């Protein structure tokens, strides 16, 4: 090993925010069904504590050995509707409380999988689960919810779409003393993956083994600094966009390798299978850890300016190319995140009115995960929220990719007002929603948007 490589790695960790964004343990809870809801709650709680009891401690130990921070330790579970089949909304609230207790007991930051998959049809259980969401999320601290309402193979469930628009409103209203923070813990998906380690959309898919460990890498800060170094060490005119893409690829390789190593070692110590590395570039509100900053370095003065979509396409592709080579198995979402509130530079672009909802939507056609962490006025009606989500679902459905929407209608606040959730959830001005109230007839059709044709792709 060369000393300069060692020092470069140390600099990446200490100065450029290289970390492992999350190690997420997926746990199957299908065997936790009891004779009544109390017994089910107790079995779920017991299983999580028994399987994940030493999880956080092991992550911390491995993190110390290799000198790489592991920012979040999380758990994902089998979508809750499967173990809660036949339960009513009150029962689901009890299950959410049990999950919250278990997450607190094992010391994880957050738990995902309070979820359902309703892309084709909604069962009575699914309806009860959806009805439980506002209270279940409002009365818990660590539980995250997600729902898959569309897939490329099945189309978009418009009945579910109508319900989720109202649910987003109800979640915000149920947590209005915290500016509608509850809506930040609920995400609506098209083509939801079963091995995504990132929240709020992590679930332990039915296709997974009993217990599995997935890792989410970070690294926008590392990539931004690598690009700055490359640009400053070259004469103007010598460097072209493919040189920058190559630098992103190589840097992503290093970033991904850190995640792969930490995930593998934690798996070995816990004696459970290692699943995937999710290659997503996940920003945090910390200055210098922003995906938006990379846009500026690559040549647009503000995120949202013409060229932003092309830059994101290049960035997303380069991240995948570097990451795929660095890891045995990749999965999850794997792309560049553009969560407005969680990225200081994106939030600044919103403030300058450089970045609007429509441009974000265009950008999500070339990256994962979608319209993420976007605060909108509390006055926007449920059907308009459903319609915004519908557009995002259509992008995922037609393009055979994962898309998602996490919109926060902030109660009592209007466009331009400021909202802050603190910590990793960040802060931003509220984005205006144009053409609100004009999509009601579309949303009220119900039924399903049929799955798209899989030939004649244009």
């Amino acid at each position, binding site marked *: *090993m*060369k*000393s*300069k*490589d*060692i*020092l*470069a*790695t*140390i600099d*990446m960790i*200490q100065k450029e925010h290289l970390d492992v964004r999350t190690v997420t343990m997926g746990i199957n809870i299908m065997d936790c069904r009891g004779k009544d809801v109390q017994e089910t709650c107790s079995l779920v709680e017991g299983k999580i504590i028994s399987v994940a009891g030493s999880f956080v401690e092991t992550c911390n130990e491995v993190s*110390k*050995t*290799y*000198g*790489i921070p592991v920012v979040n330790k999380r758990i994902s579970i089998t979508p809750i509707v499967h173990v809660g089949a036949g339960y009513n909304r009150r029962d689901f609230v009890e299950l959410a409380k049990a999950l919250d207790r278990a997450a607190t007991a094992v010391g994880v930051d957050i738990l995902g999988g309070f979820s359902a998959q309703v892309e084709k049809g909604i069962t009575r259980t699914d309806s009860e689960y959806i009805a439980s969401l506002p209270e279940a999320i409002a009365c818990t601290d660590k539980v995250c919810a997600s729902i898959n309402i569309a897939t490329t193979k099945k189309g978009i469930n418009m009945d579910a779409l109508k319900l989720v628009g109202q649910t987003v409103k109800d979640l915000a209203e149920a947590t209005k003393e915290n500016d509608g923070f509850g809506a930040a813990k609920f995400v609506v998906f098209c083509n939801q993956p079963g091995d995504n380690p990132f929240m709020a959309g992590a679930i332990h898919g039915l296709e997974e083994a009993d217990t599995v460990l997935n890792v989410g890498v970070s690294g926008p800060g590392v990539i931004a600094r690598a690009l700055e170094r490359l640009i400053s060490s070259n004469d103007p005119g010598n460097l072209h966009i493919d040189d920058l893409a190559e630098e992103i690829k190589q840097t992503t390789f*290093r970033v991904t*390798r*850190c995640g*792969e*190593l930490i995930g593998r070692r934690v798996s070995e110590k816990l004696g459970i299978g290692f699943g995937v590395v999710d290659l997503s570039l996940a920003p945090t509100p910390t200055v210098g850890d922003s995906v938006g900053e990379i846009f500026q370095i690559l040549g647009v003065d503000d995120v949202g300016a013409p060229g932003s979509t092309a830059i994101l396409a290049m960035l997303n592709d380069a991240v995948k190319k570097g990451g795929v080579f660095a890891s*045995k198995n990749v999965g999850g979402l794997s792309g560049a995140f553009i969560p407005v509130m969680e990225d200081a530079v994106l939030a600044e672009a919103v403030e300058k009115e450089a970045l609007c909802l429509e441009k974000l939507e265009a950008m999500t056609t070339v990256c994962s995960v979608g319209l993420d962490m976007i605060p909108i006025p509390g006055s926007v009606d449920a059907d308009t929220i459903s319609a915004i989500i519908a557009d995002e679902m259509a992008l995922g459905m037609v393009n055979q990719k994962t898309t998602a929407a996490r919109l926060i209608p902030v109660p009592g606040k209007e466009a331009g007002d400021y909202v802050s959730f603190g910590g990793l959830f960040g802060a931003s001005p509220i984005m205006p929603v144009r053409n609100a109230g004009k999509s009601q007839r579309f949303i009220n059709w119900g039924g399903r948007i049929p799955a798209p044709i899989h030939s004649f792709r244009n």
Partner: protein
Amino acid sequence: MANQMVISVMSKDRPGIISDVTGVIYSLNGNLADLKQSVLSGYFTMILIAAFEEEITSDELAEKISSVKSVTGLEVVVKDFDGSVNPEPASDQNGIYVITAQGINQTGLVARIGKLCFEYGVNILDFDTVLSEGRYSMILYVDLSGTESVEDIYSAVDHFGEETGLNVVMQHSDIFKATSEIELV
């Protein structure tokens, strides 16, 4: 049985030192088993191991190499060597860590960290220093497999950082392999 020698050569650096020294070994029908050379601030140093079928003593070999006509002069030491040229690694790789210490240069740093390693039974496998943009860095590959407690060494390393004002970290070497090499670790 071949007659093995370990040879150390030091000189002001110039082109041709390796050619001169190995030329002498070749002329004595010596077989070169291993070699390491390095240049530091314009000074060349080399250590090599060679095996000779013919009878030759370490003093005779030193004299022959020293007699090479060189504008810089070669400082040569030769010793008999009875070890194995490629021994198995002394420890399993799990015990190999890297300590890096970075900050403003000050006298006695290497001696102090060397003393710390000795006190805790830490074997230094390789040591490199880098001075770049006013920042002094020490990089030590260390083998902790002979130590009683890795935790104690973490504490000692932290304490060393506090005392010297240097930014000192100790990490398992796999993290650097992972970020720098193609092979999965």
